[in-house]
């Protein structure tokens, strides 16, 4: 099969732009998910009434439905009720809605893994609840939960491939367009795969480096 290099060079700027959008969406999706996950897992930890139930409902709803449907519901459904937002906002909210529940589960299992003696020792030396969380629970929970946080982060970057369905010019959307316009199927798909490899591979190396870095807080191993 002959590769049309000329076409690849001419389409490169398009893909470059699309790749940046993918990275941007993935980054903000992950960040918001982390915040949601942290807040929700702290709510679960303190067993705050009502909020705890809401978090449980949110987690089940978000984990048991596909992102595509969540996005369509947000983007096409809610706009009809008068809530309008830009595609990008909608995509980031969708990713955060999905990722938030995965991060919640990850943090929760990390917090559960912190041994009781740690918490009790913290309390007995007179730490306040906030200090306990900040200095004792979170550092250790992070160490335990880092592998699943990393997996979730990569998962979210991959899920950005779906938001092209609501007219965001990220990699999938651009590829679909290019295939439709120029019929350079092989070249477009090749660039798509290479672009994802260039995003996901460094990310996964970065995350496994980070994983090793936070190990120091792992207690007793």
């Amino acid at each position, binding site marked *: 099969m002959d590769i049309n290099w000329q076409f690849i060079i001419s389409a490169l700027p398009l893909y470059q732009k699309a790749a940046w959008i993918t990275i941007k969406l993935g980054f903000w999706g992950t960040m918001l998910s982390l915040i949601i996950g942290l807040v929700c897992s702290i709510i679960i930890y303190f067993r705050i009434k009502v909020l705890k139930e809401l978090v449980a409902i949110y987690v089940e709803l978000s984990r048991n439905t596909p992102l595509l*449907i969540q996005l369509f519901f947000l983007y096409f459904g809610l706009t009809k009720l008068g809530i309008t937002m830009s595609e990008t906002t909608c995509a980031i909210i969708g990713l955060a809605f999905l990722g938030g529940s995965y991060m919640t589960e990850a943090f929760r299992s990390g917090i559960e893994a912190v041994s009781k003696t740690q918490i009790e020792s913290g309390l007995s030396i007179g730490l306040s609840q906030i200090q306990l969380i900040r200095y004792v629970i979170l550092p250790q929970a992070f160490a335990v939960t880092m592998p699943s946080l990393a997996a979730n982060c990569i998962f979210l970057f991959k899920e950005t491939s779906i938001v092209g*369905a609501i007219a965001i010019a990220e990699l999938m959307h651009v590829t*679909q367009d290019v295939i439709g316009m120029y019929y350079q199927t092989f070249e477009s798909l090749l660039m798509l795969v290479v672009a994802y490899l260039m995003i996901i591979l460094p990310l996964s190396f970065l995350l496994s480096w980070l994983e090793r870095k936070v190990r120091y807080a792992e207690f007793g191993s």
Partner: protein
Amino acid sequence: MQNLGVNVLFEGTTIQRLLEGLLVTAGIAFLSIIIGSLLGIGMGLLRTSQSKTIQFICRLYLEVFRIIPILVWLFIVYFGVPSALDIHLDGEIVAVIVFSLWGAAEMGDIVRGALESLPKHQIESGKAIGLSFWGLYRYVLIPQAVRRMLPGAINLSTRMVKTTSLVVMIGVIDVVKIGQQIIERSVIKVPTASFWVYGLIFILYFIICYPLSKLSKKLEAKWEN
């Protein structure tokens, strides 16, 4: 406030059509789970093999599916393969192929994890009482491994069901596509149709996936000790 718009769901055959679409999705998911599991068990057995080459190839196969999003794979097989081989592939067939291969990779990892988590003395005792290779797997390892891999396997199934929602992107007339058709048909009469239809599809997926993930959690808790 006379017309809330929810009526769009109860007019004519809307619900029936959506359920028919769901059946297409469920059919793809079901077939892929079965094929993927069968291939995955073979894959898992291969991955416990001693040969470094086989291990490397299997690992590579898994990573290839883990790194590249499933939607990209759907595109590659749907657009790339027909244009490379000059054949026609239906969206449904593409979906089953991609989901089965992906399922095999992930299932293989689950099976491998289960087999490797079995204590070593099980294998050694099996060998000591003179079981053959197949006897060892058939009577000792597989029955124990099945328990350990079932929660993961069910989890994978819910993931596959959720991922089948993507088939609309490669032209399969699934529940999402039918939803879009219904919305387009009634958009003038009922402007809020998209809210209700996508809301219903959202709930339909939840109804399928929720019991599965609950079951998986239950089994996990039950077999942990």
